[in-house]
């Protein structure tokens, strides 16, 4: 125990001075490559990490508590703040769980638009991953290029819903707006452009000597371990487990679409990086198919379920009964049936699911957000042990965690 005063201040690592001892350092919570507010307590033996303790909760806002005090529609914009890199995927996962709970079928045009937005968000999120991961490792130019292309994708999102980061572009029962004029043309241009850009990032990175040295055999995890730690998404597929919820438990239009799931057996960061690149290509492929699907759909955007969903504005303004129902739904909120539901979706980060327990009230009795990043943060306890301190940043980057959904 140290006795501290003004003349002899507290030394955090005094035990390091003793022979054969480990040094304890704090990584974060304000570290630029911690991707948010992650505090890692690292125990070091020389440069090797002996023990790692992720300390989270610096961004805890009590979103699950707020869900118990908000009606179902009120809560939807709050879900934007979970994974703020790809907020439509959160909106969608939440809307889908509520729809499954009340047994709602969404019109086909809404499905096409939603799937488009989901895949566009996947590209935005993966570009962000490549950019920040490259920056963490030291490749500054990739960061600039990837952010430039991400800007185009965000412009598309802005044209559709008016927001760039917190979209709230999905509603329970459909989407609020049809695609604006010219949007499809811009999307086609984007789809033509982005594969060339992905090629450029790969030219800059994949065979790059430094990039390979930094990523190969760093952050390796076996398939068995990955399953035990509850990994999902690219973390799971990077370890050779072929499981994508879009393919295995299809939701929305993914059952009809033709796309491949890239899987890597390398179990390391480089393999995961290549999966992210390939997934972006597959997203473009999905978008191209959706562009062809869109004109064949009917005009309708919101499901017809007067008990749960307000009628279109035109009907509210002209029909008395639609106005009455709209009034009740706005002032009291919809009341889903009693019961519980857990619906998984494949967000860019992994398996994002909402568990909703309803007691037949307008307020959810319990809402649990299953965030992929939360479990990937837990995995850091295992992944970091035995690595060098220089690789810690790479490993945090490769898990692609976002603190909005870790802390909730």
């Amino acid at each position, binding site marked *: 125990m140290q006795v501290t005063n003004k003349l002899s201040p507290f030394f955090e690592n005094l035990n390091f001075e003793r022979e054969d001892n480990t040094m304890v350092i704090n990584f974060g919570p304000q570290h630029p490559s911690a991707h948010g507010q992650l505090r890692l307590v690292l125990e070091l033996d020389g440069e090797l990490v002996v023990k790692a303790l992720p300390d*989270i909760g610096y961004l805890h806002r009590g979103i699950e*508590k707020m869900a118990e005090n908000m009606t179902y529609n009120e809560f939807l914009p709050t879900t934007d703040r979970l994974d703020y890199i790809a907020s439509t995927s959160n909106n969608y996962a939440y809307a889908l769980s509520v729809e499954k709970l009340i047994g709602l079928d969404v019109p086909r045009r809404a499905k096409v638009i939603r799937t488009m937005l989901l895949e566009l968000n996947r590209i935005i999120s993966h570009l962000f991953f490549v950019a920040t991961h490259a920056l963490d490792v030291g490749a500054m130019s990739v960061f600039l290029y990837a952010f430039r292309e991400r800007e185009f994708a965000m412009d598309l999102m802005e044209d559709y819903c008016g927001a760039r980061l917190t979209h709230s572009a999905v509603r329970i029962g459909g989407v609020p707006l049809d695609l604006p004029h010219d949007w499809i043309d811009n999307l086609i241009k984007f789809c033509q452009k982005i594969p060339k850009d992905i090629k450029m990032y790969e030219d800059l990175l994949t065979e790059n000597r430094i990039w390979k040295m930094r990523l190969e055999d760093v952050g390796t995890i076996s398939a068995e371990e990955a*399953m035990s730690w*509850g990994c*999902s998404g690219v973390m799971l597929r990077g370890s050779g487990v072929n499981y994508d919820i879009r393919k295995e438990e299809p939701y929305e239009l993914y059952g009809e679409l033709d796309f491949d799931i890239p899987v890597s057996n390398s179990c390391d960061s480089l393999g995961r990086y290549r999966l992210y690149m390939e997934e972006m290509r597959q997203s473009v492929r999905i978008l191209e198919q959706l562009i062809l699907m869109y004109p064949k759909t009917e005009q309708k955007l919101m499901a017809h379920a007067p008990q749960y969903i307000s009628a279109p504005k035109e009907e509210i303004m002209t029909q008395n009964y639609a106005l009455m129902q709209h009034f009740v739904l706005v002032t009291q909120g919809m009341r889903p*049936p009693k019961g519980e539901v857990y619906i998984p979706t494949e967000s860019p980060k992994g398996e994002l699911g909402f568990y909703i327990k309803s007691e*037949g009230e307008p307020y959810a009795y319990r809402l*649990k957000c299953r965030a992929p990043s939360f479990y990937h943060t*837990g995995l850091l306890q295992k992944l970091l042990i035995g690595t060098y301190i220089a690789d810690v940043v790479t490993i945090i980057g490769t898990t692609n965690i976002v603190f909005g959904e870790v802390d909730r």
Partner: protein
Amino acid sequence: MRKYTPKDNVQKKSYYTDRFWVAPRVPQMSIEEGSHFADVINALGDRVLDASVQIGQLVVSINHQDNYSVLETLKDVCGYKICTELSAVDYLAQEGKFEIFYQMLNLDEALRVRVVCMIEDGLAIESTVPLFKSANFAEREMYDMFGIYVNNHPFLKRILMPDDWEGHPLLKTYPLEGDEFASWYEVDKIFGKENRDIIGPENRDPSRVDRYDTKRFSRVGHEVDFGADISQGEPETEIEYSKTLLVDYTTGSEKLDQRR
């Protein structure tokens, strides 16, 4: 008379419910013979108290003492290799119990099972960390949010809330704005306990607006100096709009732009 609010559940409630309204229930389907779920039920044997298929997933209700052995059977015999989610629901007001659920995933069949058990308040549940490492963080979060102790957990410590926090925020008795402890927590940390009288409790209602606070709020048409005391009345200030002069350079005349 003041409106009665129940103390055992302080979450927001519907202000009006029709007297004759009965909430419907999500359909609970029976398990088809010969399906994968029927095999799961057979493998679990008499540990199953109740089972049904709800929205495509098998929901199995068990005793809380059996949680480890049931998950072990699910993992080793039925192929449920991933425990995707684990948490609790507060039923203290109704039954004095918590409901704990484990959400399991079978990768080969692409099927999910939810294992549900009820546990009395004050009892501890057995940890499932030896089976699933993902339970490490999830059980810590459950302890943090509900105060349910987990036996044999390697590191049962608060995870989202600060270590020295009192109370468990997801309990139904815990108000949304936080309790008495929460309102003094940061005041004590920053200013010290001895300055409580001077500083006062933290305002944890985000929508509260102090009418006389001129440091954080201002009103259009009533602008005053920063920090001015307006409790005795406030001066009316005329709103000034920016003015644009239209200049005609040939004649050299200027006039005020009054186009709207």
